[in-house]
């Protein structure tokens, strides 16, 4: 299969050239270095702020330049994703090349890189199919609507009832209903989210009475609209749950296991002595 894959790559001259370029360690290192530089710059340039915040920190032409090249949201910019895809292809081709030469001795290396490929693929799945939002439920009330990061209201096909919120332990006792039928009774705690139908609900915040908005969920900062949409009741506790649906997670976990396994095998079980002996003799 591997031989087929490689001979397939040989079929087209252009593809062949790209494959050859991607198959060198030098290329892989250059791409990885670019990813490192881009990631680092993203920690120094504030990411995802509101327009006026950037205007306050940078002058206008500088801001427009930053924005045009995606530096205000580097990790989601097209060129950063292209870099990651190039890195993926480079790892993929380098790993295939390794297999071709000496499969049995390359096993730890191959496991490691397979792990990386699966993690990156999982990240792409998260990016495309993942959903994230925030929901608040008042005590003794039902809720089936959450607000996503684009400030859109979304409705679940089940309802969550908040039976009790405990401030002391920072936990919410909830019941999941579907068509007036009780399905699940669960306690959500920090570090112990509730999972149902691919959705996970994390204990994120709490409060009493009116809700005054929260960071990135701008739509929530309109108390009136919120009170209408969520059916606010005076003087009662509410719990704030982060709503996440992320089909990329199983891939990432699987990749993590392979990555750790491969690296441990490579550096702790495979004798490096041979390499080192040759090295010391020089």
């Amino acid at each position: 299969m591997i031989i087929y894959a490689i001979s397939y790559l040989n079929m087209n001259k252009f593809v062949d050239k790209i494959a050859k370029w991607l198959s060198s360690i030098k290329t892989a290192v250059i791409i990885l270095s670019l990813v490192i530089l881009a990631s680092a710059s993203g920690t120094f340039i504030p990411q995802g702020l509101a327009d006026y915040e950037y205007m306050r920190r940078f002058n206008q032409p500088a801001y427009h330049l930053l924005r045009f090249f995606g530096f205000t949201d580097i990790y989601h910019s097209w060129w950063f994703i292209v870099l990651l895809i190039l890195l993926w292809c480079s790892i993929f081709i380098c790993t295939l090349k390794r297999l071709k030469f000496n499969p049995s001795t390359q096993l730890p290396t191959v496991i490691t890189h397979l792990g990386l490929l699966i993690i990156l693929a999982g990240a792409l799945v998260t990016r495309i199919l993942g959903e994230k939002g925030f929901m608040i439920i008042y005590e003794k009330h039902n809720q089936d609507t959450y607000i996503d990061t684009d400030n859109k209201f979304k409705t679940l096909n089940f309802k969550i009832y908040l039976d009790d919120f405990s401030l002391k332990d920072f936990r919410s006792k909830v019941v999941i209903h579907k068509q007036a039928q009780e399905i699940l009774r669960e306690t959500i705690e920090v570090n112990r989210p509730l999972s149902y139908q691919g959705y996970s609900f994390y204990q994120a915040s709490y409060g009493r009475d009116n809700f005054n908005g929260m960071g990135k969920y701008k739509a929530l900062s309109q108390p009136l609209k919120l009170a209408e949409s969520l059916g606010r009741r005076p003087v009662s506790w509410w719990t704030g749950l982060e709503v996440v649906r992320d089909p990329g997670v199983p891939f990432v976990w699987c990749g993590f296991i392979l990555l750790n396994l491969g690296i441990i095998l490579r550096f702790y079980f495979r004798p490096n002595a041979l390499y080192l002996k040759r090295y010391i003799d020089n």
Partner: protein
Amino acid sequence: MNITYINIAFAGYFLAIIIYFVTTAFKAQSFFRIATIIFTISFVSHTAYIFERWFIAKRPPFVGMYESIIFFSWAICLVYLVMQRRKKAKPLSIPLSLSVVLMLGAASLLDRSIKPLMPALKSNWLVIHATSYFIGYAGMAISFLASMRYLFQKSLNSPLALDLDCLSFRLVTFSFPFLTIGLTTGSVWAKLAWGAYWSWDPKETWALISWSVYAVYLHQRLLKNWQGKKAAYLNVVGFLCVLFTFFGVNYLFKGLHSYL
């Protein structure tokens, strides 16, 4: 809380430095054993202090700058003692014990009150994540010392220089799996605590950058035969990234990882 144990450790490490100096200056190799015994006793006392604090605080002692420095220096001593049994780590004994004494000295100036752990962090993942990172970073720190000593050698072809170069590489191969475990368990823990396995938080990002620099180092060393100066410089860059991840990020940026 009682600081007797950490004071004993501090005094012991200090005494060990003096004896290491005597060993080197007068070429009195028999003294080296004595210094190592004193170093080991100090380490036991250091360990006792950490466990006492763990017991009193009723949570793992890796929270805040004070505890981080105490635990980091402990991990450095641990890796050094383990390494010393098998490898010739003698040329590192002085710079290493000097660094440990400096770290403990710096820690003694910090606020050592026991702070409670925020609810989001109460998890067994803390122990795995933090311990692997501390051991991994400790290994990288010793590797950095070896590379620095290598770069300050008069002759880069002397047996000592070659030993140092080799030692720095061995330590990276020892530490890299710990860094990987730390990075991935951190990601799993973030998923459990905040709902996302990766959010490009500055701490996460710099941890990934450090990991990637060492990945480049390993590829260059194993596949491109980088040795000596070039490898040593890259190793230094790697450790500067580690230092930035560990200390710099907390002072410069606001993020989820504000407890260090």
